[in-house]
């Protein structure tokens, strides 16, 4: 690793559907259980085509803050860890796939060689007052 380069903090979610990540700098907090989080939540993987998170899956909520100051609560199904990765291990999607994956900016190569999708919560937009993924929040079920 080039020590002259600043590492990138990444929050990894080992979601059984597909491993995903967000930049640690965006993360405000991680709630222990979705059931204890009373605001709307977003299942980003479901938004981009993965199966919805099963209701009986142990969930946490990763709250990220985008540049506008809006907080988005992401459902996280699976263990979470935080790691520093070299910037060279954050690889933008190839052009052939990037256009069809607006919520995914890159893949992250972990030290063990495993891969995760780097999600961009700031690309999430809400139609008027409808909150996407709200129906997936166990606290409202």
């Amino acid at each position, binding site marked *: 690793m080039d020590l002259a380069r600043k590492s990138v903090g990444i929050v990894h979610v080992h979601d059984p559907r597909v491993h995903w990540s967000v930049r640690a700098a965006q993360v405000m907090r991680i709630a222990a259980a979705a059931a204890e989080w009373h605001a709307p939540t977003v299942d980003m993987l479901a938004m981009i085509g993965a199966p919805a998170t099963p209701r009986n899956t142990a969930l946490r909520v990763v709250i990220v803050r985008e540049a506008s100051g809006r907080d988005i609560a992401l459902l996280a199904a699976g263990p979470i860890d935080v790691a520093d990765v070299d910037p060279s291990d954050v690889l933008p999607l*190839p052009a*052939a*796939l990037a256009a*069809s994956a*607006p919520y995914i900016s890159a893949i992250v190569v972990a030290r063990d060689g495993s*891969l995760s999708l780097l999600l961009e919560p700031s690309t999430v937009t809400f139609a008027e007052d409808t909150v996407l993924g709200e129906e997936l929040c166990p606290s409202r079920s």
Partner: protein
Amino acid sequence: MAVVREIGGPLTWIALPTATPALPGVAAWRGRAIAVADLAAVLGAGERLASPTGRVRTLYLQHGASTLAVPVDTVREPLALSDDDIRPARIRTDAFCMGEADVEGHTTLVVDLGVLLEGYRPAVASGPR
């Protein structure tokens, strides 16, 4: 036409939920992310890829500005075929089929993976907003 840049071992890749069966995911190769192609999905034969593992070998193909990883079961040896050795394809008539040739007594399909992959790129989506 796609050019073989490298033949490697098993591939680690990750599925993209937005991807197509033909280009189901992404892998890291030489410091960048490249698309992974699933020939089984394209040809409609054989076992489909399942992330995170690929197959025993991986072909890395250059097609224009794009590089693609194509997991395969076996790589035998490079063969030099002249145009006269390739006859019109009768096995399949897909656009990616350049023809067929006799290799070690077997009729072998000759494909242009560049054509194949161009045809299977995902359509640009506006995203579920």
